[in-house]
């Protein structure tokens, strides 16, 4: 850098600093440390695909006409000549077939949206399984949770904008579900659609929601999410020198500026590659929305599939005798809609949102946790996580049951019967198996610490005994296997004090103890130094 450039840079820096005191911020941020691990990139993928969504979305708004006014198609696409369609659909065709690169931008936008939701869910799973949601990050878990819900809203509102026959049927399902809400449902439906379905105002309303309201909220919450990450400093995986009181890593500038900044371009590049090669949402094959046609084997985008699966799973008649639609005092209560589309997702998401507190009640731990758990060391949490994923996957598979049936030549009805039982049995089974695997891995860890690594070298003792030589672990290897807490079930104060007076808050304590026993009654403790000394002593006798 020339001296001239240096002095120009210094001058600019001085100019800005005198007006903003930015120097302090730069000092604070530039050498901020971040630990290194591949799983920390999942959240980054979500962030970067959101940036790609903003960039490609701006391009799309330049051509999209959010209007339900009916026009007759008059463009290059022969199959659509003279077909009546909304301006929204016509402008989607226009930008796809008459704007060079327009189709590419639509596909970049759609693929980035799928990646966005997928990255959020995977990132959330990483945070869940490593216990990164523990104190002090519970509130940031909630911010992230809200971002996940908003990403679904962003995805669904965008998916509906082209006003094609697929998304139109999706909206009609939303309308049916909305109307099933007791007392107010019909009015909410009128409120959303501006009258009867589909009305003439929905696309403009969804457009505003999709390009202003939802992304605005997402931006604000991303800022809050990242602010809290900076405030808390990043979590780290266990290892030598890493404690709950420090952070070990590389500085934001230059290492993470290059790595994370570079990773944005990698994400963008890969989305562009996928969008260039693979067609997604070819609305010109589906046609404009018309309430009459529908085709077999059509599915919503992946993130809504679980709701569709739940709607398919729920029988209209339980065991062919109990109706799932009740008529009471002249009013209709549709459990076959309320349960799968509202109550079930509500419980599922509600449990997810509250999970950090549920686990905090069980552990009774009030300290800040900055070193991540290895999933095996939290067998119940890991079991719950795998059970939730199994539950979700069963719904997704039921949402694709027609495609599975077709592909594997199975009966559609049998598949549904299977999943109806599976939705109860499989998550429980997954929990049980996962917990067992965690215990097994923990025992293996104990084995390694106590007796060292197998070397594959067999020696014969003088008295004829064959033994395999074990090599002790290094201090660093051992530390990773023994550094976690050995959490015992909560001990609570008795119900009555020594004067026989009933204690306030006893029932709540009992609940926490019950929860704690579920988590920690059965556990494998990490090896202690005494145990290791004893084991080594015994080895000495051989």
């Amino acid at each position: 850098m020339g001296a001239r450039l240096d002095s120009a840079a210094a001058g600019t820096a001085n100019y800005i600093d005198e007006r903003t005191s930015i120097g302090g911020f730069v000092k604070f941020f530039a050498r901020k440390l971040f630990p290194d691990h591949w799983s920390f990139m999942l959240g980054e993928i979500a962030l970067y695909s959101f940036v790609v969504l903003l960039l490609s979305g701006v391009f799309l708004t330049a051509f999209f006409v959010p209007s339900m006014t009916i026009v007759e198609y008059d463009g290059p696409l022969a199959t659509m000549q003279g077909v009546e369609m909304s301006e929204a659909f016509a402008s989607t065709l226009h930008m796809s077939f008459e704007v060079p690169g327009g189709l590419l931008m639509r596909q970049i936008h759609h693929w980035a949206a799928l990646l966005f939701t997928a990255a959020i869910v995977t990132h959330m799973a990483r945070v869940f399984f490593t216990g990164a949601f523990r104190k002090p990050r519970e509130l940031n878990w909630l911010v992230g949770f809200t971002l996940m819900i908003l990403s679904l809203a962003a995805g669904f509102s965008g998916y509906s904008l082209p006003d094609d026959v697929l998304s139109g049927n999706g909206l009609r399902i939303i309308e049916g579900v909305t109307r099933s809400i007791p007392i107010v449902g019909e009015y909410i439906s009128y409120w959303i659609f501006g009258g009867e379905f589909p009305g003439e105002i929905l696309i403009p309303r969804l457009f505003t929601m999709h390009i202003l309201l939802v992304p605005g909220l997402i931006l604000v919450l991303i800022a809050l999410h990242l602010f809290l990450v900076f405030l808390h400093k990043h979590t780290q995986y266990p290892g030598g020198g890493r404690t709950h009181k420090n952070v070990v890593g590389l500085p934001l500038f230059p290492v993470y500026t290059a790595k994370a900044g570079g990773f944005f371009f990698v994400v963008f590049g890969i989305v562009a590659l996928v969008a260039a090669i693979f067609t997604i949402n070819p609305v010109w094959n589906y046609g404009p929305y018309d309430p009459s046609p529908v085709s077999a084997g059509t599915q919503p985008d992946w993130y809504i599939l679980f709701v569709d699966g739940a709607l398919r799973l729920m029988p209209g008649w339980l065991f062919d005798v109990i109706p799932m639609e009740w008529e009471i005092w002249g009013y209709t209560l549709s459990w076959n809609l309320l349960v799968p589309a509202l109550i079930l997702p509500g419980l599922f998401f509600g449990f997810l949102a509250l999970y950090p507190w549920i686990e905090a009640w069980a552990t009774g731990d009030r300290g800040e946790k900055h070193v991540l758990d290895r999933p095996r060391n939290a067998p119940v949490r890991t079991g719950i996580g795998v059970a939730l994923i199994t539950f979700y996957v069963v719904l997704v598979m039921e949402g694709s049951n027609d495609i599975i049936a077709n592909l594997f030549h199975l009966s559609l009805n049998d598949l549904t019967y299977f999943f109806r039982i599976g939705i109860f049995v499989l998550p429980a089974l997954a929990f049980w198996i996962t917990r067992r695997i965690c215990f097994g891995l923990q025992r293996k860890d104990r084995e390694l610490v106590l007796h060292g690594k197998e070397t594959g070298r067999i020696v014969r003792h003088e008295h004829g005994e064959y033994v395999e030589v074990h090599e002790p672990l290094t201090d660093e290897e051992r530390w990773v296997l023994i550094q976690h807490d050995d959490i015992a079930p909560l001990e609570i104060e008795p119900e009555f004090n020594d004067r026989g007076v009933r204690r306030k808050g006893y029932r709540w304590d009992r609940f926490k103890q019950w929860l704690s026993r579920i988590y920690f009654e059965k556990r494998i403790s990490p090896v202690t130094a005494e145990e290791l000394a004893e084991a080594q002593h015994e080895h000495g006798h051989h």
Partner: protein
Amino acid sequence: MSTTENPTEHGPEGSEKQNGFENPGLPYHRPRRADVDPKADKKAERQVAALFGVSIIGTIVAIGSYMALDMTDEIDSIRFVNMAIGLGIFLAMIGIGLGAIHWAKTLMRDHEMVEERHALRSSDEGREGAIQNLKDGVEDSGLGGVKRRPVLVGSMLTALLAAPLALLWPQIGNMGADWNISNFGHTMWRKGMRLTRDPDGTPIKASDVTIGSAFHVIPEGLNELEHHKIEEKAKAVVLLLRLDPRDLNLQPGREDWSFDGIIAFSKICTHVGCPVALYEQQTHHLLCPCHQSTFDVANGAKVVFGPAKRPLPQLPIAVDDEGYIVAQSDFHEPIGPSYWTRLHDTSDGLHADDDTEGSSH
């Protein structure tokens, strides 16, 4: 900087014990090839520069494809232009990304550093100060303390809670159009209205409907509607089928709703409103592709499988003097999914057989 790093000796963190073990401290720094071998260093530098070069080529490819390639009306040519631009963008982006990451991984200093964390909790003095400041503010304002002003507080809270209504009431009030939810209860079908083909609107003669065939039907005059055409179509679409009369079990009270094996049902699923579009001729089953509710047409379209609870509403039909199929009336119950006040729309006589044309909308 007050940070320590890991090249020389074990750090001071080892003092913390867990399960009786000492924390071994930071591991030793392992030098990379470029750290020790100047040749490897030079090579990595060239690789990074080459990756940035890939990006520059990608940009040229993207802009060049946009300018040089023509889009014709052929879908293949459109796809090709988009693919060429897309591949250019891919190279332009991935070159920068991989270059920067390679630079960071091979050439930038990679000695791990340690920073202490501080408890997030404010200091005791900080907390006391905060509480005192708030107390002072409460005292100064009269929100509480010695000179408490309950009337002010009460009226302010009431005003604050009520004020959003000034904004929300007119807004929400306007968003539901006429709020006439009784529209859910009826469709445009009327006595004597012909059943016509979807989408061209040509009427159907009974003699056109052969046994085993199925027609997608819209009401006569739907295509000529000036307003609410799609809304009306969304409710009024019908499937017209003809079964062998021997297979058809007429439902009690509906013996005269069909004609010689020709029978008409609402096409809108009673589960959540998808069109029930798949007809299996052999079994007389209608299947909704959205959630697979299955209805048995031979038995009043009752549910045989899936999430729907109620049969598809039946449209009573007859044949007029010219041999065309006509409706006898509107449906006798609301079509589509269930809702809270569905039974009100069923039982209030809106759908009497003598309902005359044009009585609504």
